């Protein structure tokens, strides 16, 4: 694993320097929990954090634990952001509600290539530009859609030859490559999620010079020491249990070792045995502070 210049070994120290941190990862890897934990770790350092999430279709069913952490949270939605944007940029006050309730416009927002992504990215840019917070944590959808999120504003200048959207896209692209921005990928210590993460990183790199941050490997089996070889006199059920633990550790290590030369720093997050997601996030934040 290469150690890249601007990043230090401390996840927290690096995060404190950033204005925007994007999180993505394959579905079901705990991407949202890791994003929350980062937000919590920063807010414990007295940073003003804003947490925004975006899911392209239905709103997701995440538990609402962050609310109790007192961090401002917002679920972004394309048509609302579009309305806000149109109102502000175009001074289009007349008939606004009639226009946005319109079936044509609704259909258009849903299908216009890259529109949702660009509008959401535009909203993030707006927050970044106003700088009312120290750090924006952006919980992006799973990797496929995240790629579209980065791709759309970049391709939009070609697609829309004129108009306001065309001009806005340039600002968004500047934010994406700002050295105070960071893109983290969350994954699991299993072969397929790791391979898919590497593919995503490869594709993102082909898009542009993104400030890539950390590959956060979630739910790693904690590396506890065991006598080697295992004592012979152990009862068979205990022996089985310990062997299973060793196999699991070995498999995880092999999967992680299989991913080489990534331009991201690797950070392992242990698997916690807490029951509620809120406690898990608190534990995770403790770990990220180390």
């Amino acid at each position, binding site marked *: 694993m290469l150690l890249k210049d601007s990043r230090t070994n401390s996840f927290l120290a690096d995060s404190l320097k950033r204005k925007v941190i994007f999180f993505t990862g*394959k*579905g*079901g*890897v705990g991407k949202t929990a890791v994003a929350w934990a980062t937000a919590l770790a920063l807010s414990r350092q007295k940073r003003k954090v804003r947490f925004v999430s975006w*899911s*392209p*279709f*239905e709103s997701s*069913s995440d*538990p609402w634990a962050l609310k109790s952490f007192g961090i401002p949270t917002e679920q972004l939605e394309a048509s609302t952001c579009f309305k806000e944007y*149109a109102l502000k940029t*175009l001074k*289009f006050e007349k*008939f606004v509600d*009639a*226009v946005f*309730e*319109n*079936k*044509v416009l609704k259909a*258009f927002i*849903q*299908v*216009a*290539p890259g*529109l*949702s992504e660009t509008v959401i990215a535009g909203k993030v840019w707006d927050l970044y530009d106003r700088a009312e917070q120290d750090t924006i944590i952006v919980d992006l959808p*799973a990797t496929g859609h995240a790629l*579209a999120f980065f791709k759309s504003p970049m391709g939009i200048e070609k*697609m*829309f*030859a*004129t*108009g*306001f*959207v065309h001009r806005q896209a340039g600002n968004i692209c500047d934010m994406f490559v700002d050295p105070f921005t960071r893109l983290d990928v969350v994954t*699991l210590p299993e*072969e*397929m999620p790791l391979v898919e993460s590497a593919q995503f990183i490869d594709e993102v790199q082909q898009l542009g010079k993104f400030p890539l941050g950390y590959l956060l490997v979630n739910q790693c089996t904690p590396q*506890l020491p*065991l*006598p080697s070889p295992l*004592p012979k*006199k*152990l*009862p068979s*059920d*205990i022996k*089985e*249990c*310990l062997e*299973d*633990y060793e*196999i*699991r550790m070995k498999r995880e290590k092999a999967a992680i070792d299989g991913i080489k030369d990534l331009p991201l720093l690797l950070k392992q997050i242990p*698997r916690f*045995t807490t*029951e*509620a*997601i809120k406690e898990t996030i608190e534990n995770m934040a403790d770990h990220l502070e180390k």
Partner: protein
Amino acid sequence: MKQIWKDKRIFLIGGPGGVGKTTVAAALGTQLAIQGYKTVVLTVDPAKRLAQALGFETFSSDLQPVNLPEIKETKLFASMLDTQRYFDKVITRFAGSEKQKDKILNNRLYRIMVESLGGSHEYAAMERLLEFTKDSSFEKIVVDTPPSQNALDLLNAPQRLADFMDNSVLRWFQNTKTPFSLFRQGTKMAMKLLEKLFGSDFFKALAEVMDDLEGMHTGFRDRNLEVIRLLKSSATGFFIVSYPSEVRLCESVEFSKALQEKEIPLSGIILNRIEDPCPQEVPPTIDLTPQEREEINQVLTYKNNLVTQQQHWINKFNTFLKDIPEIRLERRSEAIHDLETLSQIGKRLIS
């Protein structure tokens, strides 16, 4: 073999990504085939995960026979869908003429639109499922549903596509020569806004695609109704693969509610990756050095904590989804990449 696996013909395996859904679908298909049923397992996952689970690196065709060591006759088929190509086929079927078809398929915007509608994977999967159901030689059909960000996409995507193809929406985009004055006020303003935001060139191009799609709405609407009928049919069993944790419980409860609203019965919840119970500590009678004892007990404590954590959420699953049959599958410490293991898992599933 339990009755449900005998009675139903179609098994939809849904749920969030990352819980082993593909493996469960492949395992079920393998075991049904071993039981003697001619079975097809359908997956649309572009990551080709089923292929890996079944021991293939790549699939050469849409429908691939899988030879099981136990039986002579080929009973298992795996189908991996190339959704973009399949969606083109759907367009071809619904297009009124050769000219309309070519015009749409050659349109650059059409491709991007299909992608951004988001439901094309789900739609293609449901289309392919309809085709399989019409082939009476398939006795069992197992569908590994697309790994949606939200499990409900599977149910909503065909509807969304049908809505989009709704004639009344399409008509607005067609005949762009129509003077704006003929539109209702809201539409007029919407059109002006869009033109201002995106420039007239882009807007014209979009109107053109919408124009090309004319006449296809009936096809999409009818297919959507057919899919819904199929999902509600008594021959179909809907299963959620999940995991005992807070986030997964929330998703599963929401999913089951959505199914209820659509009057689609949920046949079962498969809780995957359940830890085997293990002893609390090394019995004091066993002679070990203090360090050995401490290290071993630490690992045992960790594993027991995992078991307790899972048990807590298994209980919650039983409270919140008490009327739905639950099947538990244990966690495997080895990677699953052979038919032997798949058939073992399948055996546990159906017995």
